[in-house]
């Protein structure tokens, strides 16, 4: 059980900087997920926390103690690797016991902890097997068990579920969450899958190209994405982005006219730091687009249905707007229209996110 603090952490390989000034506070017992597209530096950041990769810049604190120069073994952390990294020549029992043997733990204590971990992870019957004789899910549990027996201060997970099939991934997700609830140990989890991040995390850290884009709770990120990158990354299906022009009205409001519906500008609450008629992006999540006319103010557009995915409970409608832009809509239940027919859509003003310019420019809306 420990807290973790990253103070302006950076990583350089030769002249290339791959991690820039990462600042992060992880409270004791928190479940933090690092998420981002591949190559964003999330695994490197995790390896720096683990001690397997030296820190180039900044300071790393565990429980308030600076650990930059403490070797991996002495940081008291345990890591679950993407490839599980089970020792292939050892049985499950030996795999679990190896770390404790290195610490010169007494034999009966090792046996006790191995048994406890095996029971917790339902590995009792597999203790004499070798990793090659186990299924993917079982190997994953052994890898987690190897971390548990050490009773680490912080668990580190490096994309632990990416080698499993979809069904098993959902099950293991629940198991890891349940494990966190039971152990209440600080956990740091790296994934590129935003669904994993949303379902498991107390706190999500969105990374891109070695920089932190946003830190917050899952719902926080969903409701108040700080920029267009986070808005597009969090949420499935992805948020729709439509081109528009904006004119500031006063300090807190601006008039927005979609390219798809230039004749009907609406007034949106937003930080008005743009000049008159400047091009902006309007974001709206597929689940917020409505077919019926809501009481609240909304932009009305007419679109053509290009493709339909009926899942029974919900349907995804892929539409094309008059401006040529694509728009994905999620509706409850089946849909009456068919591909090729036109459909009237309402974009509630309260659900709009306004973004200016580039992907990482800050959002204009404040929900």
């Amino acid at each position, binding site marked *: 059980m420990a807290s973790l603090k990253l103070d302006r952490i950076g990583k350089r390989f030769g002249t290339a900087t791959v991690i820039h000034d990462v600042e992060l506070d992880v409270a004791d017992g928190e479940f933090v997920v690092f998420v981002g597209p591949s190559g964003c530096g999330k695994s490197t950041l995790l*390896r720096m926390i*683990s*001690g*397997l990769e030296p820190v180039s810049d900044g300071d790393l604190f565990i429980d308030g103690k600076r650990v930059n120069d403490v*070797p*991996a*073994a002495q940081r008291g*952390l*345990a*890591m679950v*690797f*993407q*490839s599980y*990294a*089970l*020792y*292939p*020549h050892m049985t499950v029992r030996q795999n679990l016991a*190896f*770390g404790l043997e*290195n*610490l010169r733990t007494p034999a009966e204590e090792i046996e006790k902890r191995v048994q406890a971990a095996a029971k917790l992870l339902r590995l009792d019957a597999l203790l004499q097997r070798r990793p090659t004789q186990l299924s993917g899910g079982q190997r994953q549990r052994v890898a987690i068990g*190897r971390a548990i027996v*050490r009773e680490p201060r912080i668990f580190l997970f490096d994309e632990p579920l990416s080698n499993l099939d979809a069904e098993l991934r959902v099950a293991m997700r629940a198991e890891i969450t349940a494990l966190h609830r039971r152990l209440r140990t600080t956990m740091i989890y790296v994934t590129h899958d935003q669904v994993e991040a949303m379902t498991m995390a107390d706190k999500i850290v969105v990374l891109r190209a070695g920089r932190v884009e946003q830190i917050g709770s899952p719902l926080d990120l969903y409701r108040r994405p700080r920029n267009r990158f986070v808005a597009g990354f969090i949420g499935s299906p992805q948020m729709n982005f439509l081109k528009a022009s904006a004119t500031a009205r006063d300090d807190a409001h601006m008039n927005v006219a979609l390219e798809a519906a230039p004749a009907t500008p609406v007034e949106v609450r937003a930080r008005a730091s743009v000049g008159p008629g400047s091009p902006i992006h309007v974001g709206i999540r597929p689940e917020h687009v409505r077919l019926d006319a809501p009481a609240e103010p909304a932009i009305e557009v007419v679109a053509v249905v290009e493709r339909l995915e009926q899942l029974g409970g919900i349907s995804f409608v892929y539409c094309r707007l008059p401006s040529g832009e694509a728009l994905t809509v999620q509706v409850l239940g089946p849909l009456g229209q068919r591909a090729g027919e036109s459909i009237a859509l309402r974009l509630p003003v309260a659900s709009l996110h306004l973004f200016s310019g580039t992907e990482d420019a800050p959002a204009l809306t404040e929900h």
Partner: protein
Amino acid sequence: MPSLRALLTGTRGRTAPDWTDWLTYGYLVLGLLLMFGPVVWMVMSSFKTPAALNEFPPQLLPYGQAEVNVPGYDRPLPLYRVKVADGATRTLAEVRRIGLTATMVDPAHPQDEIKVDAKDRERVRELKFAWGNYVEIFGKFAFGRYLWNSVFITVVATLITLIFNAMAAFALSKYRFTGHNVVFLMVLSTLMIPPTIILVPNFLVISQLGLLNSLWGVIWPAVATPTGVFLLRQYMLTIPDELIDAARMDNASEWRIFWRIILPLSAPALAVLAIFSVMWRWNDFLWPLIVLSRSENFTLQLALNAFQGELTTQWNYLLAMTVITLLPITAVFAFLQRYIATGIASAGVK
């Protein structure tokens, strides 16, 4: 085993042997004779008495004079096939021979002596293995001593070779230090220097270290082999780095990672190197010949060489020693040959 029989008698022609079958089997039989003929001849000859070895024309099998125990005579008597006066042929035992007349007895009736013309008798020969060749070399010469020296050098040098080369390979494959490629290339480049060129420098070093006439003087210069480092390094590159990271997270020291993770996982490559090393050390001749000059330090190879006297050579003992010298290598090959195949395939060298 039906599969083995099918393998040995397989033909290309469905009904009658094809001409390629004749060619293939002819080629294979020729190869078999060329490869195994000398070995078979040597093994068979090692069971011959000196007399049988000098016989002309030479026989492949160790035939010897048949003998029989006759009551009334202390020693076994040699058996002869004799044409007696009435024209019949009888098998008799020879008591003595003086000049052209041999005195014979019938083993069934030992009391009656028969005089026979020496021209009318012919030796009775039978398969006779002279096991004495093998028994006597242990008593007559310091053969046990030579065997021990060879075994000591082979085993100790192989163990040290495995450990040293594995450590070097571990460092060169898993640590990213400045110049690791340069070090590796330098190790490899020593392959280009023929051993004969560094014979004198090696000798000077060994002599300065006071290791002349010591078994360690044979062992130390041989343990660091570029081939071994290369073979093990290439194999260790295939061991995932994540395993080492996992072991580091598991509090394992670098030495423990080497001992508990790297070595067990390199077993196939280690087996290949072990086989090579055993063969190199066991068959090594030139270097031991230079370092070891006192006969009590001789290895088997040196002893075999020294056993060829200036005037006479006791071929029966020499051949028996040679057969014993061949046995360990044969055993190593028989038991570990599958490792050679898999190891060479995965390491992709030699």
